[in-house]
């Protein structure tokens, strides 16, 4: 993340082009994760244990949307007029509407990301469970997130924020995370689909076996979408030897910021082969 290109287009470049192996340090195993399991082992004893570094990979189900389909455009319900307006004005990073060099999003300004966009990027992330809380750590922008699991309800009138306010509970073997209190400054995805302050986000996590975590993202945002947006589940792979590396988005130099972010049309489209 120290090179110029990466500063301005960290999301694009690294999400699409960089090898994830470059981003995640693989020096030593973090904790002794000695769970005796193979790929085919059942989740016995692990069903309520989501801890570890997870990674999503290209599964080929969404051509042109290399593996970033945790929020799946193909299952999106019709937009409301407000949602449509937002969507039309967005200069997306991906999809058929993306124009090389004209992309614009909060992430390109090094502004914080947040759920669900943060959840769909193919970068390493880690779950840590402690009493009363579940933490999620994302390599992307070095963001951490708290999910309260101490039985508290969602707040009635939360201040809008990037990450929202999250609570989680177990329904059988499924860890259900509900989040409210978002601001509307990030999109729900990289295609420009909006997120509003009315969004109620539900994430459903299920550890299918030692190596596989299923994640399903459900967006209920009546200001943006005419119906609840239920994306198909997405699988994440356990990476026991990985540790989350430091990846900050830093507008390190004003000149770089000006050239690559504020005047993106001067920079031309990103060539992933370079």
């Amino acid at each position, binding site marked *: 993340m120290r090179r110029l290109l990466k500063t301005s287009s960290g999301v694009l470049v690294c999400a699409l082009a960089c090898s994830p192996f470059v981003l995640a340090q693989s020096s030593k195993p973090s904790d002794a994760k000695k769970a005796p399991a193979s790929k085919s082992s059942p989740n016995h004893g692990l069903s309520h244990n989501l801890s570890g570094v997870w990674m999503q990979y290209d599964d080929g189900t969404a051509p042109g949307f290399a593996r970033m389909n945790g929020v799946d455009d193909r299952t999106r319900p019709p937009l409301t007029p407000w949602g449509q307006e937002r969507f039309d004005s967005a200069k997306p990073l991906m999809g058929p509407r993306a124009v090389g060099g004209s992309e614009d999003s909060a992430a390109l300004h090094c502004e914080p990301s947040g759920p669900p966009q943060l959840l769909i990027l193919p970068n390493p992330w880690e779950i840590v469970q402690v009493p*009363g809380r579940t933490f999620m750590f994302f390599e992307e922008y070095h963001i951490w997130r708290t999910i309260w699991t101490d039985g508290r309800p969602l707040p009635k009138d939360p201040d809008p924020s990037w990450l929202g306010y999250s609570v989680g509970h177990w329904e059988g073997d499924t860890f259900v995370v509900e989040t409210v209190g978002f601001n509307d400054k990030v999109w729900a995805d990289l295609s420009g689909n909006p997120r509003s302050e009315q969004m109620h986000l539900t994430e459903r996590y299920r550890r299918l076996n030692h190596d596989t975590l299923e994640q399903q993202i459900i967006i209920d945002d009546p200001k943006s979408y005419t119906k609840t947006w239920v994306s198909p589940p997405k699988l994440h792979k356990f990476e026991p030897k990985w540790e989350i590396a430091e990846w900050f988005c830093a507008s*390190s130099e004003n000149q770089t910021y000006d050239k690559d972010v504020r005047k993106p049309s001067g920079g031309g489209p990103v060539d992933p082969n370079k």
Partner: protein
Amino acid sequence: MKEIGHKVFSSKLARIVTLIGLSLAFSPLGLAQTTAQSDKRSDPAKTQDGAPLSHDLSGVWMQYRDGDVPGTPGMNGVNEHFRPPLTPWGQSQFESAKALQGAKAVAGKEDTSVLRCEPSGPPQVLILPNPWEIVQIPGRVLMFFEEQHIWRTIWADGRTLPKDPDPSYLGYSVGRWEGDTFVVETIGFNDKEWVDLYGNPRTSTTHLTERYRRLNKDTLEQQIIIDDPKVYTKPWVSPPKMHKLEPGWELAEWFCVLDENKDYDQVVRKPAGVAPNSK
């Protein structure tokens, strides 16, 4: 905190006052949400001073004004009064810095990476009087800072410091217990920020040591030791600083956001055009 953050950021003054302002002026009580207690810390056996809490550092901590360094309330974890002489190189770096604080600071002329919303890191992030939290899990100690929503990993699984770490904002940290003192050592810093708000340099050769000791249930002692022969002619040993346990607090979301280019241009890129104390 979020509310404060937004209001501040949408005003012109904001960028400049964020750090100084939030750190010095606003009540810390406004920064940390006090909604509900996160974890129960109610074991009476653990509430006695000196007892088995000694290896338990977890909780939300806060440092307060102690007045022993006039003009720098609460922000003396890295204490300039104890700074050793600078090397010639360190001196030149120090003199070129446009400090946020201290005798060198000129209102409207301050400039630091933090004002551009670039990440902070140790030891600077440790000395700001904002809530921070320690969470201990097997093999690791996690530190969470409300300031810029930063988290940091201290490996406590016996591993050694890396031989040739890539320079980074947070560095690479390992920790171990020496009796009742948790000793954190960090290397692998970049030189993109200062160790404090005076402009004292941090470089890729900085070796940072932090010593933590829980004196009683409510008090955490933190001592910061900076060793960087490129900058300082001797190790810089600051006196210990006390942090108070705030069991009813939870860290709020505080991101540094360059929300609008206009703000960025007016307030950050042309700081000389703004006199922070004028209106």
